[in-house]
């Protein structure tokens, strides 16, 4: 529950005023609905009484009938406003929430960041975000509106009809209604959490089965895998049935509660009528109000039955959003983070298998058998992997503030990723540049010609940069890196997937683009290229 509250707070804070206005209108809608039915019931009974008494002429019909019309129109208008405001506020909150999420994930270390590429991790996060989207519209606003409305109605009814009628309605709805909802929440938390888990496993299992199809057929284990998925579905169905039973049970008790509350209010009105403290017209108000108030209660059902799913999502995401702990990258500025440079060579490496200093303007080819830790070494220089073997200007990279480190070191990861949008959008991740600068960078990675044949800088790429070939994507990613003009440029297999002529052009282009920088490139082949001034190997 604590985590749900944290998330709710975060969502509300995105735009407090809009949320507040939305909540006020939600309350107004409920109140107007209650007033409309209460006033109409009173009005008809009162006119009936007046008609029978023959004092029809003296009865003030205009104010109540105007009230009825006003409430009818007002309720529709308030409903419209409520919908617009709450949706607008929710959309703002969802956007802000996602931005927070992006920022919080950006602080992870190399391993966690690389894991974000996996389908499973991503769909997990998105499913959680989706589950939390309903927190405001289905839980927070309806609960607040229901509580406030009930309390206001209690006050007005006590004054108009009598406290006994008001108390019966408030007590039944708040206590019995609350109990039904609590029981529903209690009964659904476990199955809805489990259902979510099983569905994630089913999703993962289906992906594994389809991707691994050949291996499963070859090992004659496809029938077993299929049977496993059928079992998961069976469990999912069983949990869904549990949820449905609990929800329907709650629905059953709620409709009985509404009938009971209406009748209890009716009887309490009758008692007051027999005592002579009110007239028949006032005695029916309680009944009508109780019937109309049911709306406030019924709209809570769905939100409450989703609680388990929301709770497990909040448990995963709330700590993620909270993590202020500076991870390997050292995002926050605590004592250890320095804005200023230390003293010492630009880069010195004291790896068990490699001890060397490196200076500006050098171009180093780093090679070694696969699995020896070349990528990890680069990640450590980039400050995304904790370690003790690297110093930049005499200090470990993680000791620098994130911004200063990024200005000093930029890196092309081995499996580089582009974002959806235009070529310009992708390059602009490196900062703001003029078109001429962008074209120059594209020229230096031998990509300008390819793009000129398309829409130039406005060429649109799909998700993950879809629309470019593997080699083109790689070159675009390299272009992003050379635009930064950092002191140290780390390239993890920059020529992998490029044909020999293009690789040649790219290596020369990169050197020309950042003549002052220290370039360290992991090369599987091509380490002998003349552009490199130094070759070092990492051995086991």
């Amino acid at each position, binding site marked *: 529950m604590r985590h749900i509250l944290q998330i709710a707070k975060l969502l509300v804070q995105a735009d407090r005023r809009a949320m507040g206005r939305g909540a006020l209108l939600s309350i107004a809608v409920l109140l107007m609905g209650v007033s*409309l039915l209460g006033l*109409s019931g009173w009005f*008809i*009974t*009162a*006119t*009936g*009484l007046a*008609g029978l008494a023959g004092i*029809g002429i003296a009865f003030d*019909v205009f104010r109540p*009938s105007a009230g*009825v019309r006003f409430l*009818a129109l007002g*309720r529709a208008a308030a409903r*419209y406003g409520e919908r*617009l405001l709450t*949706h607008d506020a929710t959309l703002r909150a969802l*956007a802000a929430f*996602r931005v927070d999420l*992006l920022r919080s994930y*950006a602080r992870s270390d190399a391993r966690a*960041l*690389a894991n*974000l590429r996996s*389908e499973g991790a991503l769909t997990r*996060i998105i499913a959680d975000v989706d589950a939390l989207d309903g927190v405001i519209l289905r839980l927070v606003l309806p609960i607040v509106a229901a509580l406030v409305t009930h309390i206001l109605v209690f006050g007005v009814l006590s004054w108009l009809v009598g406290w006994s009628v008001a108390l019966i309605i408030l007590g039944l709805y708040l206590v019995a209604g609350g109990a039904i909802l609590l029981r529903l929440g209690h009964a659904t938390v476990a199955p809805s959490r489990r259902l979510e888990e099983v*569905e994630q496993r089913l*999703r993962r299992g*289906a992906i594994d089965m*389809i991707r691994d199809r*050949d*291996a499963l*057929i070859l*090992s*004659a*284990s496809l029938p077993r895998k299929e049977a496993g998925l059928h079992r998961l579905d069976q469990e999912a*169905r069983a949990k869904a049935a549990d949820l449905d039973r609990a929800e*329907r049970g709650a629905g059953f008790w709620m*409709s009985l509660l*509404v009938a009971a509350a209406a009748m209890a209010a*009716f009887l309490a009105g009758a008692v007051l009528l*027999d005592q002579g403290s009110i007239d*028949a017209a006032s005695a*029916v108000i309680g*009944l009508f109000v109780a019937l109309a108030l049911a709306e406030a209660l019924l709209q809570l059902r769905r939100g409450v039955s989703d609680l388990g799913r929301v709770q497990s999502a909040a448990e995963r995401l709330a700590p993620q959003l909270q993590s202020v702990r500076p991870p390997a*990258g050292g995002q926050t500025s605590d004592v250890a983070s320095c804005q200023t440079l230390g003293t010492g060579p630009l880069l010195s490496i004291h790896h068990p298998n490699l001890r060397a200093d490196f200076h500006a303007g050098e171009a180093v080819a780093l*090679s070694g*058998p*696969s*699995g020896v830790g070349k990528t990890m070494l680069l990640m450590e220089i980039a400050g*995304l992997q904790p370690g003790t073997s690297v110093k930049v200007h005499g200090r470990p990279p993680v000791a620098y503030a994130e911004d200063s480190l990024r*200005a000093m070191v*930029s890196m092309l990861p081995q499996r580089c990723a*582009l*974002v959806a949008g235009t070529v310009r959008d992708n390059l*602009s*991740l490196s900062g703001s540049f003029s078109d001429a600068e962008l074209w120059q960078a594209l020229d230096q990675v031998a990509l300008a010609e390819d793009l000129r044949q398309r829409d130039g800088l406005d060429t649109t790429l799909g998700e*993950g940069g879809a629309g470019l070939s593997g080699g083109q994507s790689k070159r675009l990613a390299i272009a992003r890196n050379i635009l930064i003009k950092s002191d140290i440029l780390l390239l993890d297999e920059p020529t992998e997937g490029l044909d020999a002529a293009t690789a040649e052009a790219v290596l020369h282009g990169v050197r020309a683009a950042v003549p002052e920088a220290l370039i360290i490139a992991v090369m*599987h082949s091509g380490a002998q290229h003349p552009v490199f001034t130094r070759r070092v190997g990492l051995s086991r």
Partner: protein
Amino acid sequence: MSHDTEGAARNDRQRAKDRIITPVKRPLTVAGWLSVLAGALWPIQAAAIAWAVSEWVDGASAVQVALTAASVFLACALLRALLEHRSGALLFAAANATIRRERAHLIDREARTRTSAGSAQIAALLVQKLPLMQPWITRYHVAMMRVSTLPFLYLLLAFSQSWAVGVTLLVAGPLIPVFMALVGMAAEEASKKQMQDIASMNDMVMDRLSAMLDIRLLGATDRAAQDFATRADSLRARTMEVLKVAFLSSTVLELFAALGVAMVAVFVGFTLLGEIGFGAWGDGLTLGEGLFLLLIAPEFFQPLRDLSAAWHDRAAGYAVVADLDALDAAERVAMLGQAAPSEPLSGPLALCTEGAVVALSGKDVRIPDFTLSEGQSLALVGPSGVGKSTALAAIAGLAPLRAGTILVNGQPLTEETADAWRAGLSVVPQKPHFADETLAEWLDPKAIGTDPSAALAMAGASDIVRRLPEGLHSRLGETGGGVSGGEARRLLLARALLSGASLLLADEPTADLDEATADTIITALLAFRAAGGTLLIATHDPRLIAAMDTHVEVMA
């Protein structure tokens, strides 16, 4: 919209109904009638209250009258709740059976006959989208039945008391189909738009998250977050433009409902005062009749409001069926056999191809004729993209032939022989896929239980396992996190060797590897052959070709 597309849309809807609704038509109809019956109980409850209040005015003991009315009211309420509960159970069972059926169908089909659809796309359909049919099945049909019965009942009752109230509701009535169409379309549009927008906001999050390593390394976290915020905000603004219109039309329905109630209340009030002398039968309305009319007026509109709420459930359901239909229509690559465990094929190992052509969508791949006997090694050579991998797949019975035959141990490779043939061979693919299982489980998918250390040593992969934090119990995850491309290849080879197969098919086992790793792989392959194994390798690596006994060329 042109006439044709409209007709096509109607056709799609009909197909969707035939596929999903028709099989559960009976329980849906029963559930619908139960719900209609529950709705028909309301006038009795309303009459009980109206009677009690009119008795009050006549001077009876208020509490006694109210007790009688309350018992009728509560009895009806209990009956109503029971009817709705039962109806809900039927509806859930219908939806549940439908989802189970469609899911089972997909699970049994999608791996056996593969399409070009991505695994994530199919998984999303299976897990997320299929349950979206539930609200359609459980809500829409019942709402439709209620709407086509209950308002008429209430109208009849209203007319029996006062023709003016009847007319009031009737005026609102004919407007309602018009508004329903209007609201329905707008609601459909709005919900679609909202789903799309949330989906595209989520796509954007996914896209940025999967590029987060690059973004961080570029120092672009702030820029990316800001850019995302700007895009999300313009998305919000556009969504709100659509919602403004969409909500307006559903507000009109609410407005009519509220105004209908208000007009009935005001009319009844004025009639009771004697200020209106028309609209009722005989000598005007009594208080009881008036209250009765007031109580049934909101219920006249309720089924319409329920239907408009259920409208987008139907649209969501149709969208799911459209996805299912598209997947049904996709071109599929079948496999041979059942993929069930089997004894290896009898007889000495022999593989012989005769004019075999593999049927793959849009492209035929001709497998060159060759013969491979036990203990031999052979390389299938040719430039990348010519179809070497496809040829290997067909030889393993993973893709059907269009012409010619593949003879395995002297028998044609068919549905009947494929499982037994596969029991004696093993394949080393180019890229690994690590499911959510331990390395030990991954290495031994048939769960034979052989100690993997010998196979790991042969493939030069012992040190990889040693380096992993939990050794053989490590879970590598779907991207093979922590294992480089060359290491993955060695693990794949170890897996193939561990299976104990006598024939090994390898697809470009040395591609994209550094020289040292490639040497390890070639050495391991030759050791397998020296131990009596048979090798069939697709490659364009000259060193590997030279290491094989013979080679044949795959031609485009």
